[in-house]
């Protein structure tokens, strides 16, 4: 091909980097209330457009508008606000605890609180979530004790995971929260398998899978899509698109596609996007997807559009790779502010009540922390015994492990 020009590799570039002015002007945001609400039995092909739109309910004035604005009464909304506020305060305290050497590591949810908190309220007890490390709202909204979360974070003597797991890698079967893996993506196909099992058993329980924008590139994401599509598994496939995967912007995982929800096309899986900073929208879409799954209509893919306002983890400093003002430029706002404004707009909340709630929650979290620290922290106090390391490798300890435990003097 003498007349061909040399080929070139395309390397995706984010809108801005440190030093640049943040610019979200090519991020198309439909108005709240604009997205239609299809029937739960709508085939994937009929709702194709919804993978390119965003379901939004709370508008700029704080009103809940459109066909997805229905489900929750004022008590439920206040619960939701309390859950999100609890998660945010919990995060703050644990970040401090990590800095104080009380634990080795922490990951926060700043800006993403609505996603897991609202979602949890759309599920039934008995349903199973297969989360990543950034959905602790599923536990908090599900009334899992804060003390137990902290016990895990501190790897202390009351850690339900016996000191084995990295902080925040919670597990609670009882609360429908699958044991978090440090390996990205693995849980996604497991969720589909769990949902298949529920269908095989003739059960009514459904599964929810969780993954970040970056981790959608992992193969297990694909396995999950293939199996969910083929066996029509009763599972909700959630993608939390918080724009970043550590230092890598979402364009590397998304590639030439316009949205992550689009990935569902080509599997015949109904796929939609939701404003992840809009508690009402997340809840409504989750409810819809759960009803689909439970009534035999199979999987739904949901892209939660949100923004990771904090660092990736306590090991990360985002100022090295993203513009300082990107957080404030993010156009979907803050989930707590938005729900608060909505509650005030409908006359069910006030600045005073908010300040008071803030203080109460801070107190609750502080008390939980005190309680947890009685059981020790990673830095000091009591710990699970080394011998706990040898338990649960198998149901029954085989002779060679017993010998090793003895050799170790444990």
């Amino acid at each position: 091909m003498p007349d061909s020009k040399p080929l070139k590799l395309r390397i995706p570039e984010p809108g801005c980097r440190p030093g640049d002015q943040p610019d979200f002007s090519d991020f198309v945001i439909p108005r709240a209330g604009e997205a239609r609400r299809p029937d739960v039995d709508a085939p994937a092909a009929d709702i194709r457009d919804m993978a390119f739109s965003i379901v939004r309910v709370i508008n700029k004035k704080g009103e809940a508008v459109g066909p997805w604005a229905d489900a929750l009464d004022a008590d439920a909304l206040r619960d939701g606000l309390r859950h999100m506020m609890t998660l945010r305060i919990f995060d703050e305290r644990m970040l401090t605890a990590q800095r104080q050497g009380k634990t080795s590591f922490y990951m926060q949810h700043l800006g993403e609180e609505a996603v897991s908190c609202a979602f949890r309220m759309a599920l039934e007890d008995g349903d199973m979530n297969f989360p990543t490390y950034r959905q602790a709202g599923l536990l908090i909204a599900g009334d899992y004790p804060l003390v137990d979360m902290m016990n895990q974070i501190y790897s202390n003597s009351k850690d339900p995971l016996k000191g084995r797991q990295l902080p925040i890698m919670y597990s609670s079967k009882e609360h429908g929260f699958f044991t978090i893996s440090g390996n990205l993506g693995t849980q996604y196909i497991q969720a589909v398998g769990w949902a298949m099992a529920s269908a095989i058993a003739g059960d009514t329980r459904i599964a929810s899978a969780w993954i970040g924008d970056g981790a959608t590139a992992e193969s297990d994401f694909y396995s999950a899509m293939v199996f969910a599509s083929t066996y029509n598994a009763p599972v909700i496939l959630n993608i939390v698109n918080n724009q970043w995967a550590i230092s890598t912007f979402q364009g590397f995982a998304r590639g030439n596609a316009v949205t992550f929800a689009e990935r569902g096309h080509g599997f015949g899986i109904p796929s939609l996007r939701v404003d992840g900073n809009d508690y009402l929208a997340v809840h409504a879409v989750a409810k819809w997807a759960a009803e689909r799954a439970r009534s035999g209509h199979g999987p739904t893919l949901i892209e939660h559009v949100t923004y990771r306002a904090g660092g990736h983890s306590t090991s990360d400093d985002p100022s090295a790779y993203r513009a300082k003002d990107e957080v404030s430029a993010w156009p979907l706002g803050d989930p707590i502010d938005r729900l608060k404004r909505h509650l005030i707009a409908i006359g069910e909340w006030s600045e005073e009540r908010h300040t008071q709630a803030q203080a109460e929650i801070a107190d609750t979290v502080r008390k939980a922390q005190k309680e947890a620290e009685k059981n020790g922290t990673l830095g000091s106090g009591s710990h699970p015994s080394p011998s706990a390391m040898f338990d649960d490798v198998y149901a029954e300890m085989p002779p060679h492990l017993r010998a090793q435990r003895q050799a170790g003097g444990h």
Partner: protein
Amino acid sequence: MSGSTTRMTMIEAIRTAHDLAMERDDKVVVFGEDVGYFGGVFRCTAGLQKKYGSHRCFDAPINESGIVGAAIGMSTYGLKPVVEIQFADYVYPAYDQIVSEAARMRHRSGGQFTCPMVIRMPTGGGIFGGQTHSQSPEALFTHVSGLKVVVPSSPYDAKGLLLSAIDDPDPVIFLEPKRLYNGPFDGHHDRPVTPWKNHPLGEVPDGYETIPLGKAAIRREGSEVTILAYGTMVYVAEAAAKETGIDAEIIDLRTLLPLDIEAITESVKKTGRCVVIHEATRTSGFGAELSATVQEACFYHLEAPVLRVTGWDTPYPHAQEWAYFPGPDRVGRALREVMED
């Protein structure tokens, strides 16, 4: 062996074990590539879909990590999946799900979530399958705590061990030496193979009789040297012992993880010599673990170094299959060598 028995091949024994387990416990589900309607390319699951319905035995998309990942999810739900990887050579895409997930689930969740499941796969060479239908990846699983690793060498063992594996509360890697499916093979590829119906270990109890995991079997008692073998190599060991006239004690390990160290130690302390054999490549093969373990436990009883006879550190070749396969000659040479010392 109590009660009635039937002569059968290893394939039939495996099928029967599935059948009994599925009948006994409706939590047992079976799936994999070509496993459902067709009954598997080696026919190990033939008839199960018809008998138990397509929700208990079904075909899967060709995606090994998906198969294992889905099975993990099912097992944490409470089912007992038994999945087939069409050839052991194709298990690598599922390696992450096995190592990072199935093997660690119980431990990392403080016992809340567990993975009672069996991952079956035909293993080993000798069928001119070339490098991607001949591998023996057992050492890649014995290094992983949380797994059990089983290699049956006969219809009798295959049935009893598979029943135990399905009943086990932990994930079990079940490696089926495909060269043994239809008869014991001693490495003399130029001679006809005895079918299982003419071999005592082709006689299989009809009922639900298990063989415990973690227990080796002594296939031949002997006084001069201990041979540690499993799968196809058990018969190669027998041939080598016979041909050399060396009075070898042959231990069929049956379960590699957890290993029956007691049986091994007892034998080597008695014989003072040990030869370890397997088909997999040599470096970091399971023979290394066996050799290391034997010399740690029996150092003062050993009169000669523990020798390994294994596949070479090359891919499993097609035309040179019999130069690769550690047959009775190579094993015999090692036996003579340790006897000289």
